[in-house]
């Protein structure tokens, strides 16, 4: 546009210079001044015809073209205030049919935004009151300008997150934030089957993050409740569905350079729970004691990759690894790196040089100490007596698992190829089991084994988004599958037709609208069910409101619209001047010169 303007102006200036030069050269000098003036005005008129000439003026009748749009959570006070400051004839609309307290304003309901756009072309500005609208609805208002009169969020949970699916014995963490503008303390309680499992307090006048934790006792599905209480009043009561699954047992190979209590306890504990455990303990030169628990015997004389294929995790002490021949060690190394076998190394001295040792440099720091160890999730273990304190220096690329209060690391982990290696310097964890801390002993080894074992690749995996699906709202059903066939989804009785992702051929998406709140049963391709939970419209209300608020603010920000809370400002509007004026000017000037010529 600017280029066009310059071209037009440049051409007109050239034309003017040419015409003035022509005038000056003209022999007849009568009425020279008038002719010069007429030429200049003719060229100006011509230029103005080509250029868009606008002027700015304050629009007085703008208020007549505005409307109020009420959304959830609007404050009647601010609406009344707005209506009384402006004249009261502003039409009031609402997007939600069942909006509370909207009847007072005679708010007419907008069932469809596109239809509304057709009918009300005269309107150009909406004053949105309340928490705003969802992204989809905002897109429909693209052609209007919006002025957002944001409402304050009331008391409630404004964000929440938990694992919908956990494994047996795992801790369930429910994390979120609670907005408490009131002046009283709020207590958030986690309940399951009427039993209180955990609770936290939220101070008054804060938006506080909270965490609730428990080890769910059920197997399968159950719905726990998160209840926010102010004194004895229930502010919010939300459902937290959790599915507890029993994972498959691991197959463990133990290589020991000498008989050892720690190995014995671990072996017995795992075997009692149905795990396949094979132990090879060297008892003399090239003589081994072999234990096969829950499994038939296999040749154990040499460690080969075909032997290692049968196991998920190998637990070996450093001396046992050192005594292996080079090809044996190489086969373990490649098994970890390429076939993602887990390797737990028990180190008992500093001097070590093997493929794993560069990630785990060791340092002795004293003899015979009582260590207070804790997991990375700050779960504490009972104190343990250690003969020689051997700590691991943290290296880049490693993740410490168990450390003491002085941050000395005793169990560390690192990636190695596609597998993982965990190195522990604790050789007497069995003392926990002996002292009656069986739960802590279990927790320690579960943490290590879960960390090191590779995840099993499932044939298919179904996911649902959003995280808190609601009834009569769009829910995206997604499946990752390796199968070459076109998958078809099913939720309850209804079929879900899936569309392949053009970039990721293994990912298929479909849309589903749940109609009934509660557990939804999907059928996997394998015929097994998968479960997810659909919420009622009124559930997790504050989260929806916060999302809408944020979506509206983001939309306004993206579209340069006005976000404000207070006064109406005068609207300045650019208006184009009618081109006819310039045409007449040009014709008049050109006509004068033509007529003067004749005279």
């Amino acid at each position, binding site marked *: 546009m600017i280029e066009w303007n310059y071209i037009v102006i440049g051409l007109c200036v050239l034309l003017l210079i040419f015409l003035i030069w022509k005038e000056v050269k003209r022999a007849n000098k009568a009425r020279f001044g008038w002719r010069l003036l007429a030429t200049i005005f003719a060229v100006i008129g011509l230029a103005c015809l080509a250029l868009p000439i606008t002027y700015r003026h304050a629009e007085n009748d703008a208020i007549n073209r505005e409307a109020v749009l009420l959304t959830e959570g609007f404050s009647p006070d601010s609406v009344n205030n707005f209506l009384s400051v402006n004249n009261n004839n502003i039409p009031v609309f609402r997007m939600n049919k069942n909006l509370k307290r909207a009847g007072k304003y005679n708010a007419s309901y907008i069932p469809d935004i596109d239809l509304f756009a057709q009918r009300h072309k005269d309107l150009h500005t909406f004053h949105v009151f309340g928490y705003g609208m969802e992204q989809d609805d905002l897109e429909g208002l693209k052609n209007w300008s919006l002025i957002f009169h944001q409402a304050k969020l009331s008391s409630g949970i404004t964000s929440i997150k938990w694992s919908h699916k956990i494994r047996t014995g795992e801790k369930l963490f429910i994390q979120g934030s609670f907005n408490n503008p009131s002046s009283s303390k709020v207590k958030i309680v986690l309940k399951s089957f009427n039993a209180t499992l955990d609770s936290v307090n939220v101070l008054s006048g804060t938006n506080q993050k909270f965490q609730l934790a428990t080890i769910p006792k059920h197997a399968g599905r159950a719905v726990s409740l998160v209840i926010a209480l102010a004194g004895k009043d229930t502010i919010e009561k939300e459902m937290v569905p959790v599915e507890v699954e029993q*994972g498959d047992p691991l197959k463990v190979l133990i290589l020991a350079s000498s008989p050892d209590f720690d190995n014995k306890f671990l072996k017995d504990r795992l075997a009692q729970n149905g795990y396949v455990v094979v132990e090879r303990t060297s008892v003399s030169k090239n003589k081994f004691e072999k234990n096969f628990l829950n499994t038939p015997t296999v040749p154990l004389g040499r460690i080969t990759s075909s032997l290692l294929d049968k196991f998920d995790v190998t637990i070996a002490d450093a001396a046992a690894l050192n005594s292996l021949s080079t090809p044996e060690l190489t086969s373990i190394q490649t098994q970890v790196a390429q076939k993602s076998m887990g390797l737990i190394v028990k180190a008992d001295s500093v001097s070590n040089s093997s493929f794993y040792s560069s990630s785990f440099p060791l340092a002795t720091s004293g003899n015979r100490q009582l260590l207070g160890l804790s997991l990375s999730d700050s779960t504490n273990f009972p104190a343990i007596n250690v003969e020689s304190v051997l700590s691991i220096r943290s290296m880049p690329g490693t993740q410490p698992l168990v450390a003491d209060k002085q941050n000395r690391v005793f169990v560390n982990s690192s990636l190695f190829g596609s597998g993982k290696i965990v190195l522990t310097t604790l050789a007497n964890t069995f003392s926990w089991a002996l002292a009656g801390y069986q739960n802590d002993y279990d927790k320690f080894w579960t943490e290590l084994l*879960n960390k090191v074992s590779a995840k099993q690749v499932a044939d298919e995996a179904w996911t649902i988004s959003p995280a808190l699906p609601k009834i009569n709202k769009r829910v995206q059903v997604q499946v990752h599958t390796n199968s070459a066939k076109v998958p078809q989804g099913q939720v309850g009785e209804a079929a879900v037709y899936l569309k392949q992702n053009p970039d990721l051929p293994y990912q298929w998406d479909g849309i589903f609208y749940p109609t009934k709140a509660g557990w939804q049963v999907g059928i996997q391709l394998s015929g097994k069910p998968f479960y997810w939970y659909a919420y009622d419209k009124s559930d997790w209300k504050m989260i929806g409101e916060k999302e809408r608020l944020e979506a509206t603010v983001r939309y306004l920000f993206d579209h340069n619209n006005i976000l404000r809370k207070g006064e109406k400002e005068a609207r300045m509007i650019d208006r184009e001047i009618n081109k006819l004026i310039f045409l007449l000017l040009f014709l008049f000037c050109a006509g004068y010169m033509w007529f003067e010529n004749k005279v």
Partner: protein
Amino acid sequence: MDELRSTNIIETLQKKWNRQNLDAYLILGIAISIFASAIFIRLFHANFLIVTKISIVAIAGMISLFVKKIKENDVVKFLNEAFPDLEESSHLLLKSYASLNQLEKLQVIKVENRIDDRISRPPVLRRRFKNAGILLAIALILSFGVFVIPLNSSSKFLKTSAASVFATQNKPETKPAQVEDAQIRITPPAYTRKAVREQDRFNVVAEQDAELKWAISTTSAVKEVQLLFNDESIVRLQPVDRDKTKWIGRKPVRTSGFYQVKIDNNLSELYQVEMIRDQPPVIVVQSPKPNTIIQYGQPKKILINVSISDDYGIENTFINATTASGSGEAVKFKEQQISFSNFSAGGQKYQLQKQIDLAALGMQPGDELYFYVNARDNYHQEKRSDVYIVRMEDTAQLMSMDGLVSGVDLKPEFFRSQRQIIIETEQLLKDRDTICVESFNKKSSDLGVDQKLLRLRYGRFLGEENETEIGGGHDDHKGEQNAVETKGEDILNQYSHKHDNAEDATFFDAKTKKQLLATLSEMWTAELQLRTLKPKEALPFEYKALRLLKDLQQQTRAYVGKTSTKTTPLKPEIRLTGDLSKVTEPVIQQGFQQKADPVTTLRKALGILEMVRNREVLQRSSVEILEQASMQLSARAAQEPAAYLASLEALRRILKSSFKPRDVSLAGTTLQRMIRSVINIPQRSKTAPDKLSQRYFMNLNRRND
């Protein structure tokens, strides 16, 4: 005037007797109300104030209703009857003098002179007073008795039956439809001395070993009535009438549990049987302390002070005392039972004392006495207290020279000195009766000087170089003696700069020094006693000082074992070259059977309850798991019906699919409570098929290669 006087007399008599009559009735009323309120307050625990008010109102009412007023005529009648002197003419006195005829007037004048106000009250009134007084006395004695005499069995019955009704009322119950009336008679065992009681509710709270008797009458004739106990045993009720509408059955209470009434084939809801277990006696030994040492010089007696209580009664109690004498291999034990003298069987609570004379038990210094208190209640449950130890200090041990001969000894001369002081003190005490007072006092004083010298010598070990610093705690005593001498030194100390601290200028460690300081403190006290001519009181301190020194000596001893042993010389060239080819490798193959874990069943049942809540159709296997959980719950309910019975019923309703939403959470709460902890064992986790990251990993490897 005359007329006035005589009528006045009659009026006075009438008023006087009326008042006395009222008084007699008042006393009677008070007597009755005192007795009645005593009974009310004692038995029904009525409020004292309310009872008082009621009795006052009652007395007032009684008096106004029953007490007849004495009229003038009555007085006259009585006078005429009682006093022949009045010649049956006292009634004339009532009439006005003017209305009388002449004869009457004469008679009046005659009578008037004979009558006077000193006429004694009528015997009826006197008797009434007497009776009322006797009754009041009886009432006072009786009501005193009511308060003093402990509640007899009849009042106990009232109390306990009230308590048991409250206990069972926790659980609302409904009777089976065919039952018209049910009477359950609870007969507690005789030793509890509780009365038989009856109730019409099926939920029972009964004493251990009480006999329950059900008498159930049905609305119509039924074929059979059974009681099903804990899903295990059955009690068949017997018909007692021809119509077969009255049934009777008996069962003793051995455990807590629950039962159902089965009439023909209809089962009732679950009723609980809560057993009140007989508690073993509770023994609290208040003195002596668990570990008592009798120092030399202390009386060789101990006072055992015990409180024993039981819920029904104590049958027997005694002290079991064992004395251990001698040492090493020659130790001898002697056991004997000592009974409490102030014990009489049958009570619920006792506070018992027993003084034990150790010398009478034949205990010597160095011997030990172990004792415990045993109590048996009338259910023949025995309970023992912890074992308490009383040790008599053996001073002879301290005097032995064993430690000095064999060990490393830094300061033998001082020990000998302390021992010498003790020996001489004892000698002095022995000679007390034979020597004169002056020499006794002198010797005692001399011993005090010896003790002081010894203390000073020890003070050197602590770096104390003069008398003023010895025994930190006793500076004030010293200060008085040496105030003048030390004053200058103190001032000097304030301004001078000292390089070494006397405390630190020794070879001993802090612990040894502390003990040495304690020794000095004991020595100082001993010295004080000796110098104040009380050698007997000094002796314990002397012994204590000696014992502390002994301990010091034991601490400084070190043991060095022999070092010279001969071993066969090694041949390094043949080490670890043994032929192991014939040695077979041990191979152990073992399979662990996976038993059905009760906790896992409960956990699965919780998940199934969620499906039930969600109104999902249950599969056969799910129902089986719920049934197994129900069995576990039933076993728990048999032990603690009060806690688990309601949930068991809820779970059974769920299994019968006739349940309310409340039942699901009720059963779930209890199942959750039954799961103590969830086993935490490693499991494989699954991940979604993710070819993208696999390819990424492969390409990463290729680039690295």
